[in-house]
């Protein structure tokens, strides 16, 4: 780590290193493009893990967490501007394309405009929204933003800030859709967008020319809300982000807080958490199987998948009391001990599931129509997967081994033997198959753990009001559809100063336009189904 810090210092002596939980390289804002291109070209820091906007009172800025896929090193950059009236920073979108939607999010929440970003529009809030909600001086009174009575009109043009040859910065108008484009709204109310996501799709006949995703229909301002709540209170938000990997999300937040407080979680809780994570991964992948089949018109396969997912939910129901919103992990362990029948039921399920998988393969994987619909459709190359920051099974289907369980083992993943499934085709069929193979691996993990859950406490006692030591903390887990990260900045209070949830799905949406270019409308549905995004996780 310090090695790369020295290298950055060598090319740019102005940088300072800030050690505060995480060690960050503070880069002057005007030097950011130079550092970014140095990191990506010379040092192979090619994967932008998180892009976090923040308001530090006297300055506004961004924290970049960047990984190298070759050396697995990590560098954290921080850049800021003190101009609060018209804050501008340099965009890194040309270096790390996955910054596209993330920078729009920072603009939306903090009002920082990025120079060189092609499309500076709000992403989650309405275009006529007053103020920037995550700024500390934001006016939260309902009068500032009354419930609108009019429809939002989405402009067909956007603004991009570009540096002119003479060094000045000028707003340029960019066209999203030309007047002659035939634009169809796929969503927000559409059976195949899996929630309230909207794709403004320019088509020519059945062929897709361009897609402009419109997010924010289920934006609840979770990050803003979290700033006003104590740490134990923030936990319940995570279940409501990606509700299909509720356990994993909450696991990440709990681990982040536990790490900050220096709590050692009992071994029993770690085992239970890992088993629960894998069970919800199985549940989520079964849901992907079901919905992808339904999107491709095979409704019987859909019901088969749901039949088996129900068995997973029954297991959750016994122990957590919930089937979707689990509320199970808590700071220091888990809420309650496992149900007396938990072990037996899980074993039954593991015994049953291979038969279910065989049935899926017989019904759908081998079907000639299904294969024609999926093979070679929506190919995402490994380079593009890294560029667009496609983590999780989708990235692994393109050949990028990015499993957080292997890279940064947490829970008891370092004690179990499992294979990181990686495929190379990168098409819809690979994305589909990798889920079914991961179900097998998850069952393999559970098999190794279920008989060895150690006796002991399932949680350590913590106080209801927790104060985190001052500092920055970042923790990632492998969610069902990508890496889910939690970034906490604490000023030593009982509430977080900034809590950022790094979503699993935002980058998937960012890549939709790239993947679906020149495919058919029906392919968009298949690709969307195989990307497996969950909207509340994107919108937060």
């Amino acid at each position, binding site marked *: 780590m310090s090695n790369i810090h020295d290298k950055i210092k060598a090319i740019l002596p102005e940088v300072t290193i800030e050690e505060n939980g995480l060690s960050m390289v503070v880069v002057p804002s005007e030097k950011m493009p130079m550092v970014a291109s140095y990191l990506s070209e010379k040092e192979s820091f090619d994967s932008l893990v998180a892009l976090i906007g923040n308001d530090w009172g006297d300055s506004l800025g961004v924290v970049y967490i960047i990984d190298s896929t070759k050396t697995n090193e990590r560098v954290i950059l921080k850049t800021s501007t003190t101009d609060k009236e018209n804050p501008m920073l340099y965009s890194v979108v040309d270096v790390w394309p996955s910054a596209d939607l993330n920078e729009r999010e920072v603009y939306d929440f903090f009002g920082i405009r990025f120079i060189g970003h092609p499309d500076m529009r709000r992403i989650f809030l309405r275009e006529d929204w007053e103020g920037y909600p995550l700024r500390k001086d934001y006016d939260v009174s309902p009068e500032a933003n009354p419930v609108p009575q009019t429809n939002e009109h989405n402009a067909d043009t956007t603004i991009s800030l570009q540096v002119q040859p003479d060094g000045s910065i000028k707003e340029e108008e960019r066209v999203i859709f030309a007047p002659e484009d035939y634009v169809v709204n796929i969503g927000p109310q559409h059976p195949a967008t899996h929630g309230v996501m909207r794709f403004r799709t320019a088509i020519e006949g059945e062929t897709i020319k361009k897609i402009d995703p419109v997010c924010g229909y289920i934006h609840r301002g979770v990050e803003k809300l979290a700033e006003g709540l104590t740490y134990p209170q923030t936990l319940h938000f995570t279940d409501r982000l990606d509700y299909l990997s509720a356990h994993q999300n909450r696991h990440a937040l709990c681990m982040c807080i536990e790490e900050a407080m220096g709590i050692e979680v009992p071994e029993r809780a770690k085992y239970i958490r890992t088993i629960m994570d894998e069970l919800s991964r199985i549940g989520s992948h079964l849901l992907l199987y079901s919905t992808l089949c*339904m999107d*491709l018109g*095979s409704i019987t396969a859909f019901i088969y998948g749901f039949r088996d997912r129900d068995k997973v939910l029954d297991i959750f129901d016994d122990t957590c009391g919930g089937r979707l919103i689990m509320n199970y992990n808590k700071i220091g362990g888990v809420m309650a001990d496992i149900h007396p029948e938990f072990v037996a039921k899980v074993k039954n399920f593991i015994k049953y599931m291979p038969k279910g998988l065989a049935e899926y393969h017989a019904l759908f994987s081998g079907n000639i*129509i299904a294969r024609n*619909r999926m093979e070679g459709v929506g190919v995402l190359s490994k380079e593009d997967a890294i560029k667009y920051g496609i983590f999780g099974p989708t990235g692994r289907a393109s050949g990028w081994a990015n499993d957080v369980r292997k890279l940064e083992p947490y829970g008891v993943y370092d004690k179990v033997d499992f294979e990181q499934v990686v495929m190379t085709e990168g098409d819809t069929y690979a994305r589909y198959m990798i889920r079914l193979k991961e179900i097998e691996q998850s069952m393999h993990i559970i098999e190794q753990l279920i008989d060895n859950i150690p006796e002991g406490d399932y949680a350590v006692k913590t106080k209801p009001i927790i104060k985190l030591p001052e500092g920055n903390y970042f923790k990632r887990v492998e969610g069902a559809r990508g890496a889910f990260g939690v970034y906490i900045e604490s000023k030593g209070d009982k509430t977080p100063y900034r809590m950022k949830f790094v979503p699993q799905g935002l980058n998937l949406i960012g890549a939709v336009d790239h993947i679906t270019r020149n495919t*058919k*409308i*029906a392919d968009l*549905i298949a690709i969307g189904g195989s990307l497996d995004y969950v909207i509340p996780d994107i919108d937060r």
Partner: protein
Amino acid sequence: MFDFSTITNWIDELLRSCMAPWAVVLVEGLIIGVLLLLVYALIALALIYAERKICAFFQCRYGPNRVGPLGLMQPIADMFKMLIKEIITIKDSDKFLYGLAPFLVIISSMLTFGCMPFGKGLLTLDFNIGVFFIMAVSSIGVLGILLAGWSSNNKFTLIGAMRSGAQMISYELSIGLSILSVVVYAGTMQTSQIIAAQENAWFLFSGHIPMMIAFIIYLIAGTAETNRGPFDLPEAESELTAGYHTEYSGMHFGFYYLAEYLNMFIVSGIASLLFLGGWMPLHIAGWEAFNTVMDYIPSVVWFFMKTAIIMFIIMWFKWTFPRLRIDQLIKFEWKYLLPIGLFNLLLVTLMVVFGWHF
């Protein structure tokens, strides 16, 4: 075997004895029309129930089981709901065409329905270009679908209608070719004579390989023609919400719904007419005792049994296969089905010329 024409002739004579000839035609037309409409509605209800039950069994579910014994009253409740629903008018739609489109679909399906050979002596429309007439009236339906998509003022319906137009017109060629094979083999286009020609052996068996090819082509193309899965692209729920009938509500939608189910019945009915002998019992030349036993089963039962079996196969398709993509669908028709059909027509012609059939 009971010949229903004794009843119909008796009614005809009864009416003629007390009415002017034109009035007789009028009254008979009315009676037949009302009867056909009644049967049409009843078959639709039965099919909706059957489809829901069968699909439920494919999917490890119970299906409707709350309304009435075994859920038998469910389709009636559904139909009642459909009848009392508001017909929502769409802003900026072409009101006339929007209203006309569902009627075109139902008229086309109704006219084809009239040609079904329900039983011995139960043929409403039987004239020398019978099969030709069926093909002609059944292709009116695509007009209704195109107009529905166009007049609804909605991009999804328009895409659905364009898909439907491309699909139905393409697959009509294959249907036409396989029907033509049967016509060449039977040597007639009249429905009653085609059935009569299958007295000793159904065409599917007597025409062996070429007829089997024609039958398979007909089944595939017929499934496509009814817009059912795996060819349900025009109303692909997950892509186009509901395709061409997205904007229809109440009984307007009900007409499409009815027509979809009845078209399945019609396609199956024509398949049984052309390949499985219509209402003709299973006869094997020479096996007199067997043939007599078979004759005891009423002709109506034979027809509905054969049709039901083919409908079951079509439902089986739908609840097993995923949906094709539009380019794959068109490619499948023009590159595979149509050439095979043409070749098969040649084969049938040779078979007839050289007498290679049983």
